[in-house]
């Protein structure tokens, strides 16, 4: 009887072996899931590198960088990446010119002026804009913004300035301008949200100090709050730029697909992402030079956004204002 009954200390001893095993299995499972995203990134980078190396074995790097035409799919194959970069840079620049004032000013309003009730309504609405699929923005640019900018000017205006026949003279159906404007609108929520976070994080005591010295609200915002939040605002801006550079649907739909070197925003141009879309839509055989071209363009895109992100990371660490 005494032999079969476990002693009291045995009864209360936790089963450590089982619980250790469970912990181990859970750790492995969770770890595996975490590794999926890491492995995906590594896989993408490796694919990019392999195909890009294969590409540069056929097309020397100097041709890629110095040629002034981009016709890799045609018999007169030329590989001047600058053609695509110029289009991407131009569209992104227009986007930032639109998104910076829109985003920053709405951020200042939300953080400094809006009442808590108004803020609780406005912020979700702004974030809703970020949820609009980019293909919708693309068609918005192509079918609404472009025709709007091409509207004929009123007759009385034409009688004063005869050559001013449409709102933006010389604007074509596909153009970098409307793509850039709509791209700017689409990244405004990103700029506004991140800048607002940065502004909101500036401690109350700084503002109180400025008020105590007799500053008005405007003076406080411009002289104290904005400089204090500058690193956050700049990093928001850089993130928005890299988003704009990588954006695909808007530029593919609205900016056109004509590889043309130059910075004229009124005519169709072909951005880097638009080229990748164009080639992927056809049935390009794997291993051909046309197929490798999209990886070379993808690699260029990847390097540009990576450089921007590294710069933003460095900038934030270098200029961050720390408050207790």
């Amino acid at each position, binding site marked *: 009887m005494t032999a079969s009954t476990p002693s009291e200390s045995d009864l209360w001893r936790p089963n450590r072996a089982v619980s250790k095993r469970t912990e181990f299995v859970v750790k492995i499972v969770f770890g595996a899931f975490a590794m999926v995203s890491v492995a995906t990134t590594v896989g993408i980078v490796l694919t990019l590198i392999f195909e890009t190396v294969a590409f540069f074995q056929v097309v020397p790097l100097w041709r890629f960088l110095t040629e002034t*035409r*981009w*016709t890799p*799919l*045609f*018999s*007169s*194959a*030329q590989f001047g990446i600058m053609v695509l970069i110029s289009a991407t840079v131009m569209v992104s620049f227009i986007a930032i010119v639109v998104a910076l004032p829109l985003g920053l000013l709405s951020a200042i309003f939300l953080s400094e002026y809006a009442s808590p009730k108004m803020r609780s309504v406005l912020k979700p609405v702004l*974030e*809703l804009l*970020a*949820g609009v*699929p980019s293909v919708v923005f693309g068609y918005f640019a*192509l079918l609404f913004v*472009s025709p709007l900018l*091409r509207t004929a000017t009123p007759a009385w205006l034409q009688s004063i300035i005869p050559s001013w026949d449409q709102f933006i003279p010389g604007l*074509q*159906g*596909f153009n970098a301008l409307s793509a850039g404007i709509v791209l700017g609108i689409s990244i405004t929520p990103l700029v506004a*949200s*991140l800048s607002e*976070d*940065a502004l909101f*994080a500036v401690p109350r005591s700084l503002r109180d100090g400025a008020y105590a010295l007799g500053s008005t609200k405007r003076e406080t915002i411009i002289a104290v709050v904005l400089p204090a939040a500058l690193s956050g605002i700049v990093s928001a801006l850089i993130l928005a730029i890299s988003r704009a550079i990588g954006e695909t649907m808007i530029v593919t739909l609205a900016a*056109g*697909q*004509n*590889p*043309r070197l130059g910075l004229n925003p009124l005519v*169709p141009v072909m951005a880097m992402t638009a080229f990748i879309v*164009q080639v992927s*839509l*056809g*049935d*390009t055989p794997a291993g051909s030079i*046309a197929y490798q071209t999209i990886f070379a363009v993808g690699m260029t895109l990847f390097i540009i956004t990576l450089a921007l992100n590294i710069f933003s990371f460095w900038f934030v660490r270098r200029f961050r204002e720390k408050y207790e």
Partner: protein
Amino acid sequence: MAPTIRFKRLAGILSFMAVLSIAASCSGGGGQDTAGTEGTEGTSTAASSGGSGLAGDVLVDGSSTVFPISEAMAEEFMAENADVRVTVGVSGSGGGFQKFCAGETDISNASRPIKQEEIDLCAENGIEFVEIPIAFDGLSVVVNPENDWAQCLTVDELKTMWEPSAEGTITNWNQIRPDFPDAELGLYGPGTDSGTYDYFTAALLDSEGESRGDYTASEDDNVLVQGVIGDTNGLAFFGYAYYEENQDSLQLVAIDNGNGCVEPSPETIGDGSYQPLSRPEFFYVKTTSLDNPAVRAFAEYQIAIENKGLVEEVGYVALPDEVLSAAQERLEAGTTGSVFEGGSAVGVKLADVL
């Protein structure tokens, strides 16, 4: 800061997925809808007499240009023969032949005749086929309605515009003809993967698959339509069906091949006077599949004279009756091989070769 961002991303993804699922459910519902209505009204014009006893699968794949015709035919055919399932895929003319010659499909659609390499590939795998024309398409050259100078272009002028050496040099309308205005030339055309591009370059330029590269190239014909609508100085080429769909906002250019200016129209495309840009569309049937009554009936259905209306409904030009009856005889006799012997269909009159 970080949790808010994460939440925002999540919200973005979720809303996108919501949109996707709505779109998916809509298209699903739409599909069922059409099938339902087709089923109730399918009564008339059975090309295959006694079609009710038919059953089985018909696998069709190939050209995206021929797809609208096959799809319309398949819908009507299935409405009349409830036990037959016709599946129509879109792999492009080339992709279609790859599957066809591997024995995976019964019928392969093509917007050009079968090439010699493909004939060889089929022969290697012991696949024999009957070549049958199904419709005509006229490659249409279009300009913006505000263009009041280019009403008719000669073959040579089109060549000047599109040949490889024009790249970077021919950029202005007055370089095409001295009395054209001093205006920048905006060119729009299909990309190099397209059968339309192959045909255009073969018909107009010196060699197939070679043209200038500095134009707006897109595999999506709607992009080209939009381009010319938005560009007063634009010029594009694509299948006649796309012109017909957008005829209010586009203007056709007549083509002069030495015999005067001819505009594409159902008549000029059908009688072969719109040259060199009229092209026949084909389908190829595997001979062993013709032993399957369902495949034979569907093939006959596609070239039945009563079904010419379906071809016209989707924007193509139906073949003349004598060509159709020649095609029917060819199918009946099971004549194998290609009348083009691996070459191009440029300038070939179907009535003569069949």
